[in-house]
Structures are given as C-alpha cells and as structure tokens.
C-alpha cells in the first residue's frame, strides 16, 4: 500500500495571471509528483495541491521565492487516511 506519511496539501492563492502561469509550470514538473486536487485557474482562485513529503521543501521554496501565497490545508495526509480508516472500522462494527 502506498502511504502518504508527511504529505501535505497546500492551498495556494495566486494573486495575478503571472502567478497562475507559474503554478501551471509547477504542475508540469513530473519529478515533483504533485497531485493537484484543484487545478490553478484564475487569479484569486485557490489551487489545492498534495505534495509528497520528499518534495515539500522544494515546492515551498518555489512558492515563497515567487511571493505566491499559500497555507497548509492538511498537515499530514496519512493522519487523515488513518482517521478515516478508524471511522470506517467503527462503522463496520
């Protein structure tokens, strides 16, 4: 099973068209293994992206160096998965 330990989901908020384009370029970077839950679209529309733990630093540096605003929406994806599994077990019982 693939695990998502340490993966985070970032909510990124581009404020202009240039930042949207930068996010689109980021999205095309396959080695970063980014999983966009909500794709970059228009200025002031948030994009949500799941970032593997190993690439968190690179992505955050990229965003910060281009003054692109972001916040951490999910601290640890695996913790959320574990919590859901716990709930599912409870339901099944």
């Amino acid at each position: 099973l693939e695990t998502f330990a340490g993966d985070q989901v970032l909510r990124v908020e581009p404020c202009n068209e240039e930042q949207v384009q930068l996010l689109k370029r980021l999205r095309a970077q396959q080695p970063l293994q980014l999983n966009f839950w909500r794709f970059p679209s228009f200025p002031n529309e948030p994009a949500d992206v799941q970032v593997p733990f190993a690439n968190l630093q690179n992505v955050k540096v990229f965003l910060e160096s281009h003054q692109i605003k972001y916040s951490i929406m999910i601290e640890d994806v695996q913790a959320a998965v574990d919590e859901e599994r716990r709930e599912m077990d409870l339901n099944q019982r």
Partner: protein
Amino acid sequence: RERGRNSFNYGAYHPLETIYQAMDDLVAEYPQLVSKQQIGESYEKRPLYVLKFSTGGKNRPAIWIDAGIHAREWVTQATALWTARKIASDYGYDPSLDSLLNTMDVFLLVVANPDGYVFSHTENRMWRKTRSKTPGSLCVGVDPNRNWDAGFGGPGASNDPCSDSYHGPSANSEVEVRSVVDFIKSHGNVKAFISIHSYSQLLMYPYGYTCTNIKDHAELDNVAKMAANALTSLYGTQYKVGPICSVIYQASGGSIDWSYDYGIKYSFAFELRDTGRHGFLLPASQIIPTAQETWLGLKSIFEHVRDHPY
C-alpha cells in the same frame, strides 16, 4: 454480510462488491420500479451497471445520473447509492417523485469508474483516473472527465500520460466513457445529464472547454441556483453556481459539455460537500448529510426537467 434495508449501512464507505450487492438487493426489494442494466465493462473487465427507475412505458424521456467518475471521491458513489434507495423508497409517498416517475425514467450509474474505485480502495487512496495502459509510457490511466468528445485535447487537459488530468490518446478512448456515450446515443431520449463529483461545493453547467456562454445560459443558471438553494436549505452548505469555465477552471473533454453539445439541454455537474480540509477523505459521518442535501438539489432539477419538456 449486510443485506437489505434493515442492516445495510449507508453511512459507510464500501468496497465495490458490496455496492454491487446492495444494487442487487435494491432491485430484489423493488422489482416493480428498479432494474439493473449492464452498459459495458471497464478496462479491467468489471461490469458497468446502471440502475433504471421506471414505472413502465416505452423509451420514455429520461434523466441520466452518473457518479464517481473520479474514483477517489468516495462520498460521490456513497451518495449515489443512498440516492438510489431514496428514489425507490420514496416512490408512492412523495408526490413530486411520483409525478416525475410517472412520465420519465431515471438511470443511475453508481460507480462510473469501477477500476479506479477498486484501486483507490486497495492501492492508492488518491487515485482519480481509469486504469488503462498507455503504450510507451510507464504511467497508467486517463482522466475520464477529459476524455469526452467536447473540445478534446484543448485547454485544461494534459497530454502527459503521467498527469492526473491526462486526456487520453483520443476522445472516447476509455471504455468507461465510450460505454456511457453509446448508451445515451442508443437510448435517444435522454433529457437531462447530471454528473456527480465531490470537491469544493459547486453546481456547474457547460461550458468547460470554452469560456463562452451557452445559448441556454440564463435558464440553466436559474435552474442551478434554485437547486443550490434547495440543497443549502437543509444544512446551510454553501454552493457556488455557474459555468465550469468561470466557476472552477477551463477544462476540456468533460462529460456535461459533451452531453450539452449532443443536445441534452439540462446538463449539470455537482461537486458535493468537501471543503478540502478533509480532502477527498470526507468523514463517514458526513455521508448521509451530504446525500440528504444533494437529494434536495437533484429533486429541484428533476422538477424543472419534468415541467419543461423540449
């Protein structure tokens, strides 16, 4: 083993086999109203089943609903299953539903992407695509909501097989998409096409492949706003309403763009309750509330379609 209305837990997520069994149980319980039809099979040879709700007649005008084309959005398939039982159990008690089903049929594809659904349950919780193999690439799967013949390959879809929004080698290349297209075409009398997803609470209508307004913009906007208001009335869940392109982003090859261009005026896509704070891991305790509020939105659309034949 969960069987029948008294023991099946609609407030939980289930593996594919259990969902298919629950569909069979529903058919067995309401044989006068519900039947099951196989419209094809997935890339990995899993059956694609639709539930047909019909009170009789021949080739009546119909409403199509599909759920879970993006595998990981589990609350979608769960909502569809709850909705199936709601339609079956409320018929005969809800005058609005009665009048709908006395003139129209409803088709419900509960699991539109069964291979992806199984994969998301067993291998990768965040899987969204199909599981078809792409020659010459190690990456697997196509985004089935970029694979329809509507601005195929245009903006908002990727030509990289490794991308989560890969549009596939050609329109309808995915058997899951082709099966629906063939079914809708062979039926010939579908009047509404509703696709259910789940992320960030939106109710959208065409277009996504272009940012120009459709000719029925005013009417569909009005219908969508009424449906969103009905939905919000239950728990206060806020929905954003509008064309895909302006409400979310430009995305080509989407299902409701195809259905609209094919002539199905009432084409809508729901993005159900999911703030993103849980991602696609909407807590199980929210399944039934999500389904309940969605039902109000769906019914509002049903009523408009019933009352505005074309």
